[in-house]
Each structure stands twice: as C-alpha cells, then as structure tokens.
C-alpha cells in the first residue's frame, strides 16, 4: 500500500506524458484524418487512390511495427527528431488512417441529393462540406471517433518501448526499484481504466443521444 502511495507522484508525471502524447496525436489525427477522409470520398482519382493505399497499408500493420519503423528509420532520412516526436508521428499516422475511415463512413452516408441541393444554390465544394455535409455527418462521426481516441490512449502505452517515460514506463521503473510488480500494475491499470472508461461512456451517451434524432 505504501509503495503505491509513494510512487503516485512519479506515476502522475508519466501520466502527464501519456496525456500529452495522446492529446497531440488525437489533434493531429483529427485534422489529417478528416482531410484524408474527405479526399478519399470526394477527391479525384489521383487523390483518392494514394489515400486508399496509405490507409490500408497503415491499418494493416501492427502499431508496434509502425512505431519501430518510424523510430529507427526517420533519422536515416536526415531528419533529426527526438524519440518523442518520432513516436508521436508514428502514432499520429496510424490513427489518422482510422479517423479517415470513420470520416469516410460518416460522410458517405449523406444522400447525394444534399450535395445537389448545395450545388444548385451555388455553394462551392468547401462550403458544401462545411455547411451541409459536416453538420449532418457529425452524428455518425462522433461515437466511432471517440473509440479512436480510446485506442490512441491504449496505443500510447507502446511508446514506452522506445524509451519515452509515459505512464507505462513509469510503472516499469517503479517496479524496477521496489520489486513489487502486482500492486503497481493494478494501480496503472486502474488509471488507464478510469480515463478510457470515461471516454467510452461519453461515446455511448452520444450514440444514444443521436439515436433520437430521426433521419
């Protein structure tokens, strides 16, 4: 018990790193993912096909492989990034592919008549997206998107394997000092659980709320 309490400050620092990594990745993946998703759904062939291939490739790889690949190979291209940014880049690339899929599903559920109506009053493509498509697609986008946020927090634990002192690695380090693995793992599990469960609940609440909005 004492062990758990004493280690709490150190774990909190790790948690901050986890949250920081997750936060950056979620933001980057949201922006990129929505852009890619729109490009996939509406873009001309020379845009849609590369995006499709990118998305399938990235999602077909284990996240760990992606992280290691980026982490080890990025320096070779001459870019001098810290391990933090290499790991973040890999995780962001991974999640952006998932967010792109979620976007694609949400956006393609909008009937073509909506696009035609938008065109008929003279709206440009981006205006149609912003004022007609996105507001309607939002309800199909949010619940699965929150699931990608949860999966990002889960995936962030893997950055501990390239030396980033996130919550996961902090737990390992405390165990290295105290030799009491079980209480620490339970404590760590609880912290992750609280964060992710809260997010899952939000997602489920949103799903239920939107179910009342008739088509």
């Amino acid at each position: 018990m004492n062990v758990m309490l004493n280690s709490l400050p150190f774990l909190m620092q790790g948690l901050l790193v986890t949250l920081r990594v997750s936060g950056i990745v979620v933001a980057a993946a949201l922006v990129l993912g929505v852009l890619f998703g729109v490009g996939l759904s509406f873009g001309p062939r020379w845009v849609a096909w590369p995006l499709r291939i990118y998305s399938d490739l990235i999602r077909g790889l284990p996240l760990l492989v992606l992280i290691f690949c980026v982490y080890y190979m990025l320096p070779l291209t001459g870019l001098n990034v810290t391990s933090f940014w290499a790991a973040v880049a890999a995780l962001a690339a991974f999640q952006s592919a998932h967010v792109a899929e979620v976007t694609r599903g949400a956006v393609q559920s909008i009937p073509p008549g909506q696009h035609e109506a938008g065109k008929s009053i003279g709206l440009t493509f981006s205006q149609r997206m912003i004022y007609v498509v996105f507001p309607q697609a939002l309800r199909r986008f949010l619940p699965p998107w929150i699931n990608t946020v949860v999966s990002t927090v889960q995936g962030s634990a893997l950055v501990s394997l390239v030396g980033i002192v996130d919550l996961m690695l902090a737990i390992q380090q405390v165990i290295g000092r105290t030799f009491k693995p079980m209480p620490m793992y339970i404590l760590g599990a609880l912290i992750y659980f609280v964060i992710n469960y809260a997010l899952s609940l939000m997602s489920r609440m949103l799903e239920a709320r939107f179910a009342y909005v008739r088509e």
Partner: protein
Amino acid sequence: MSGNDPLVKVRGLTKSFGANQVLQGVDLDVPKGSVVSIIGASGSGKTTLLRCVNLLETYDGGSIEVDGVEVGYDLSDGRRRPRGERELAGIRADIGMVFQLFNLFPHLTATENVMLGLRKVRGMGKAEARAAAEQWLVRVGLADKLESLPIELSGGQQQRVGIARAVAMNPKVLLLDEITSALDPELVGEVLKVVRELARDGMTMMLVTHEMTFARDVSSRVVFMDGGRVAVEGSPKDVFGAPAQHERLRGFLARIELRDI
C-alpha cells in the same frame, strides 16, 4: 446579349451514360419570361436535359448557354475547357433548381434553408438574409412555419420551402424537376399554385412534369421529348389540343390520360 436572344439556348446537346446515349442532339430555346414544359416518357432524356443546364450532369457535346454564357465549358482563348469548381458555383448561383425529393437541409430550419445561399453565396448579412428569407417563405404561404425543421413539415410544405430557397437567390432561370411527383395528390395543388404565381410574375422556367393539365395551363411552350431528341414542340394548344400529328406523342398522351381517370 441582345434583348431578343433566348435566355437559355441549347444546341445539339449530346450526353451518354456509358453505352446509353441519353441525349442525341437536343435543340431548345427558352426566351426570357417564358415557361417551357418538357414532357415525355421515362428514359426520353428530359430529366437529364434539365440537369445539364445547371451542370449537375456534364454534357458530352453541343452547347448550353444561359444568358450568353456557356455553362459547362470555358470557350475563351479558343479552346473548350471544362469549367472548374469555383466557376461552376458562380454559374449555378444564377440558376435555381427545385428537386423532386425536395432535398432540404434537414439540420436547418425553413428560414435557415433559404438563408444559406443568401449569406454564403450572395454575401448578405445575417439580418438582411433572414428578412429576405422570411419574406419569400411568407410569399409561398409558410408564414407560420418559419422556424420549423423539414422533418416537421408535410411534403407540400417542404417543396414550397424548396421553391423559396431557389427563387430567393434571384436566379435568371428556374429549373423544376418533377416537383410534384413525390407528393400526395392532395398536396400537389398548393405547390402548383406557387409555380403559377411565379410564372405570372415573369420568372423564366423550365419544368419537367407529368402534370399535363398544369403544363397546358401555365406554359408558353411545351416540348415533347422522345429517344433523346425534341420530337414535338409548340404552344400548349398545338401539342395538347389539336389531334396530335406525332404518333408517339399521341400514344404518350393517351397513356397519361387513361391514368388520370
């Protein structure tokens, strides 16, 4: 653009969907202030023709000019270049369309539906756009439904919002694509009443319709399409009244009239 030029000029229009050539050379003039009804069996190309005018469908050959401007292609510097997104948006802003399935924006109220184009395309301020939108909605008889969402409106009411949305943009020509086909019979009248008033007020219109009585009453000219071409064209009296010369038109009208009973 001289005063005598037709507002919409279609010449030799061709369009194929894959192997199916839907439009096989259509010629049509729509003078300003006139109402042209386009009738024909399904597959005759009438809806495709309409949708080519505001480039919801691209056309392969021929030309469509609205107020002297070629809709689908840029013909300056001698080459025929397909128009880009932005140019098309500008051209479409001046061409209004009302759809068979209404296509109202479900997340916006009636007023907001009409306001959207006014604010984002015509650049009006919020208050100005709202005032104009409400004015049009009152004109089509929906004064008590200004803040209603489309899901709260009947089919006829939704279609009238659709009309308001299109005409609020002050288009040069209004395209109406079978606007009463999806309505319950008792709701058709209220929509046709609005269209009649617009015609009376001088709006140039092209309508594709199955309502023969209406077409006869409101049109300046009626066009019968068959097999991707204009088969018969004339005043309503000529097309509907006198024993039709054209065999396929005769057959078409007979089928329609039988159904109306």
